[in-house]
């Protein structure tokens, strides 16, 4: 018999039946770091870039060990990477989709061949449990590449009318940088964009991936990875070659970036925050819901903490089971195969310590349990309860690995509490009653809802958020559109005006004086602000003259102000639940009724357009086209939303298209009737209610339409406020309870709107002074409007009995 290998401890273990260490070897990760001489640079244009005279920061695993040093990029490195991506874009985007598909498939194969290196490196450096990286991230990365390869191969047919944006600047957070990068580079590369990714220092897995991609050969510059500090973010974002910045990280940083990018060339997509939500009702399988909590917060699967809402009648039972379960959680080195949670480094540890201390001082109860090493930076699973809802801690984002539990009484109240935060990322609903689960699933204002599950992901399911979680999407069809723009639209240019004063823009309304009596055909145009279904006198009790094309006075319109905007938004909010709750068919019927009313009023409308200088024929055509637009959107909205089938899940995932809420629209000066209707129609068709500022040059046509809306629509659906354009824009853009804003006007106004939207991070669509051809189908009623007018929600419905 060969030499005995058994250790001395078997006897003790036989009695105690404890778990032992299950270390995963990280030799290959270290060997890879050795190939870089333990000094990581940047991967640009298919080559390692290790410029001299750069600061370097140590790359450590979260426990202590110093693994390598990382060079910090500087502005010139950023410029070099963007230039490489710009050069690569020409070739990459010109290739047919099939070629890109092949390349992505080859990258997936390379990942498969080197997966051990990837998962050990990622787990070693981030400290996350290797199980999640190995069975989760790395597998998902390959699925993402395969899914997007298929999308690329069908791009010419399926995405006709769209073209890739160009170079994408991608900014990644310190945790989950590898997976977050995969979610974003896959769609970007698939549609033909090229990427410059900025990763926080000491994140080698994205660099390794860039190397694997670069070594594939023919397209070296399509994926460039720089590592550098947060101070590089604005530098990358404002590089002239960058067409879009996809930011993934902390809410405050995203907000700051939104402000600093106002008026800049690059578009901005934000994915902010990490908190998730779990709703546990009294009809739930409580034990399974407890596992859902573990999946969400204590298994290294999700990046952040969890807000847990428990129905009062099962509070005691749920808390008991939760605490019992917490006692069995194990934490340790990420590369241990038998731990639930790893450590996430000193910064994460500080953050959670501060949160828990504050929660305690504000009266919360804190329960901690589990088999956790006592030294820093390990932190035990933590359950916080009895946190007073009004305390400051209850408002901030819950950090990893904390669960904040609070009770609710009814499903209605659960929705109020759950929707009462500015965050709108993901949530799960635990209920065995289908009706209740769907009611909650549809009612939650978040991007993803899982019914009786938590944290499931799939490449074909769009993932994103709403409200202050940012409104960018990845995965599924929505992820592709993030990196596409309608073909043939003029390039988005910088409209930055350095001397635009955000504090005073549109603040004061120039006073208007009477300009003489109105001369014109009867009937006299309607007068007032159309708010809450009727014409009202403006708060300022003053009016502004509107002149026709020959300079004569056409009429007076009301001078709306801040108070009128407030009233209009309120009216729109009141009308919203009823309108959004209507079936698409019912909404379409009202749009059709409005179309019919416009046609009846055709002669009046045409004569008003004539006075603004249009030919009679053209004026009549504009009225007819407006009516057609209303009918077309009514018809289009009825074929909305669809079911996705996901690998590994029995049951459907619904991709819902939900209304945004109250949409503010500042209409362009040109096409006073057609543009107004073209914007109104999709907004209403998808269930939004609107506050509109009509054409400043000729608001009278919009007011004519209001006369019909007053008879056809329920009150408050569409509200039209006339007045000083800049002032009204300012009021709407700064309004925190406006869910989205479209602005068609000056460059300065656009810059202001983009800047001001940082307040509640409402999605904005600003024309930046570019005119649109509203009479053309693509620009006046194209799919771009359909995309922007609603938000997606993915509703996961696992089945089984």
């Amino acid at each position, binding site marked *: *018999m*060969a*030499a*005995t*290998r*058994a*250790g*001395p*401890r*078997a*006897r*003790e*273990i*036989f009695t105690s*039946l*404890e*778990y*032992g*260490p*299950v270390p995963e070897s990280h030799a290959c990760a270290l060997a890879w770091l050795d190939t870089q001489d333990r000094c990581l640079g940047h991967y640009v244009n298919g080559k390692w870039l290790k410029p001299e005279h750069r600061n370097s920061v140590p790359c450590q695993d979260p426990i202590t060990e110093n693994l390598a040093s990382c060079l910090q990029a500087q502005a010139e490195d950023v410029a070099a990477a963007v230039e490489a991506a710009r050069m690569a874009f020409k070739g990459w985007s010109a290739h047919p989709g099939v070629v890109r598909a092949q390349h992505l498939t080859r990258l997936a194969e390379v990942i498969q061949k080197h997966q051990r290196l990837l998962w050990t490196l990622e787990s070693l450096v981030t400290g996350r449990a290797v*199980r999640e990286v190995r*069975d989760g991230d790395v597998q998902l990365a390959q699925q993402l590449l395969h899914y997007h390869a298929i999308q690329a191969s069908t791009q010419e047919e399926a995405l006709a009318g769209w073209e890739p944006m160009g170079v994408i600047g991608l900014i990644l957070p310190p945790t989950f940088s590898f997976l977050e990068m995969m979610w974003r580079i896959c769609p970007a590369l698939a549609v033909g964009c090229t990427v410059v990714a900025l990763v926080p220092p000491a994140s080698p897995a994205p660099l390794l991936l860039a190397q694997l991609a670069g070594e594939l050969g023919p397209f070296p510059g399509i994926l460039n990875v720089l590592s550098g500090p947060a101070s590089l973010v604005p530098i990358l974002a404002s590089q002239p070659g960058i067409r879009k910045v996809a930011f993934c990280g902390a809410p405050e940083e995203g907000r700051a970036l939104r402000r600093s990018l106002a008026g800049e060339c690059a578009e901005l997509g934000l994915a902010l925050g990490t908190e998730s939500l779990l709703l546990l009702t009294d*009809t*739930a*399988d*409580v*034990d*399974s*819901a407890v*596992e*859902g909590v573990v999946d969400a917060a204590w*298994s290294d699967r999700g990046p952040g903490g969890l807000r847990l809402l428990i129905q009062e009648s099962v509070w005691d039972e749920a808390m*008991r089971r939760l605490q*019992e379960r917490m006692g*069995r959680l194990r934490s340790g080195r990420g590369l241990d*195969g*038998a731990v*639930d949670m790893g450590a996430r480094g000193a910064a994460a540890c500080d953050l959670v310590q501060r949160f828990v201390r504050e929660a305690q001082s504000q009266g919360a109860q804190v329960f901690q349990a589990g088999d956790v090493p006592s030294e820093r930076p390990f932190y035990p699973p933590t359950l916080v309860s009895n946190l007073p809802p009004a305390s400051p801690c209850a408002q901030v984002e819950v950090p990893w690995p904390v669960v904040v539990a609070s009770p609710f009484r009814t499903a209605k109240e659960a929705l109020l509490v759950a929707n009462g935060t500015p965050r709108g990322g993901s949530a799960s609903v*635990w209920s*065995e009653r289908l009706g209740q689960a769907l009611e909650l699933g549809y009612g939650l204002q978040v991007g993803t809802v899982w019914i*009786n*599950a938590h944290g499931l992901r799939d490449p074909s399911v769009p993932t994103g958020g709403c409200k202050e979680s940012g409104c960018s999407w990845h995965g599924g069809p929505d992820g592709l559109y993030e990196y596409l723009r309608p073909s043939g639209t003029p390039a988005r240019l910088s409209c930055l005006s350095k001397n635009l004063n955000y504090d005073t823009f549109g603040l004061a309304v120039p006073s208007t004086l009477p300009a003489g009596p109105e001369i014109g055909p009867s009937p006299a145009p309607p007068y007032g602000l159309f708010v809450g279904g009727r014409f009202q006198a403006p708060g300022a009790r003053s009016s502004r003259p509107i002149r026709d094309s020959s300079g004569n006075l056409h009429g007076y319109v009301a001078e709306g102000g801040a108070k009128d905007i407030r009233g209009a938004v309120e009216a729109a909010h009141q009308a919203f639940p009823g309108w959004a709750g209507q079936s698409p068919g019912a909404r379409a019927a009202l749009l059709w009724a409005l179309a019919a009313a416009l046609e009846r009023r055709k002669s009046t409308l045409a004569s008003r357009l004539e006075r603004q200088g249009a030919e009679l024929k053209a004026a009549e055509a504009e009225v007819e086209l407006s009516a057609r637009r209303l009918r077309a959107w009514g018809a289009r909205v009825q074929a909305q939303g669809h079911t996705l089938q996901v690998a590994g899940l*029995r*049951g459907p995932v619904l991709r819902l298209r939900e209304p945004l809420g109250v949409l503010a629209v500042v209409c362009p000066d040109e096409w006073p009737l057609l543009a107004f209707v073209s914007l109104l129609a999709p907004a209403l068709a998808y269930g939004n209610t609107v506050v509109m500022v009509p054409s400043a040059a000729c608001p009278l046509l919009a007011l004519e339409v209001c006369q019909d809306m007053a008879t056809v629509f329920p009150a408050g659906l569409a509200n039209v406020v006339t007045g000083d354009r800049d002032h009204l824009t300012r009021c709407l853009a700064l309004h925190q309870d406006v869910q989205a804003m479209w602005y068609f006007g000056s460059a300065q106004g656009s810059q202001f709107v983009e800047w001001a939207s940082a307040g509640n991070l409402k999605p904005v669509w600003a024309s930046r002074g570019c005119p649109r051809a509203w009479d053309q189908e693509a620009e006046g009623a194209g799919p771009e409007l359909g995309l922007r007018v609603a938000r997606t929600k993915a509703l996961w419905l*696992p*089945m*089984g*009995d």
Partner: protein
Amino acid sequence: MSAHNRGTELDLSWISKIQVNHPAVLRRAEQIQARRTVKKEWQAAWLLKAVTFIDLTTLSGDDTSSNIQRLCYKAKYPIREDLLKALNMHDKGITTAAVCVYPARVCDAVKALKAAGCNIPVASVAAGFPAGQTHLKTRLEEIRLAVEDGATEIDVVINRSLVLTGQWEALYDEIRQFRKACGEAHLKTILATGELGTLTNVYKASMIAMMADFIKTSTGKETVNATFPVAIVMLRAIRDFFWKTGNKIGFKPAGGIRSAKDSLAWLSLVKEELGDEWLKPELFRIGASTLLSDIERQIYHHVTGRYAAYHDLPMS
């Protein structure tokens, strides 16, 4: 085995509100195997522990006294002595928890174990095993005869039709009668979970059966036997029962547990869902026939660093 479960009054409110979410339980079952493993000495020690939980079983039509004798001898000496010595475990008295046979073979087993000089209990299946589709009277008589022959543990099957038609009181009464027929012998109630239709039924049947005694997943004769999802539901029922009554009820998965790796997963499943106090032969058994030889092979590999040939290890 520990003192008898004295039984509990039937309380149908315990099962009226129960919810079991099937897909969520399936996910948990998948996870539990990926989240806990043991290696090296821990693996060896855990495997030896697993041996002490085994109800070494033969339930074949062709069982005779000779293979029962061999089985009993293997129960007494489950792991080669030199391997145990190498692990310094030879003085721990490691045997399987019991041998499990058909009622007609109980006498053979008792005799063989006596000859081997040990007091490993003999478990007998009974009560119309495996279908349970005989008259109650003969099922009870079968139990009494097995006890008379010297079986100290009786594995009975429940009447699945009572579960499928929701006759919980009748089920409870039957099990109570089984319990009474057992006398001093221990009762394990086989739920035959593969034939109960839903996990909710598994939970309810577990609750009712625990109002009598030990619960066991399956006979080994159904198409689906011991699976993790079913076990999770039963273990949760055991914990709920313990929280309600303070009684610890034992658990026995049986059928389809063949590899050493499986047995480790079962141990960690019980450890995770119920805790260490359930990891003793009084409260946890594994019904298996071929599992033991795979464990022995793994121990051999652990001790020697080599993979064993068929003839290196004695057959059972």
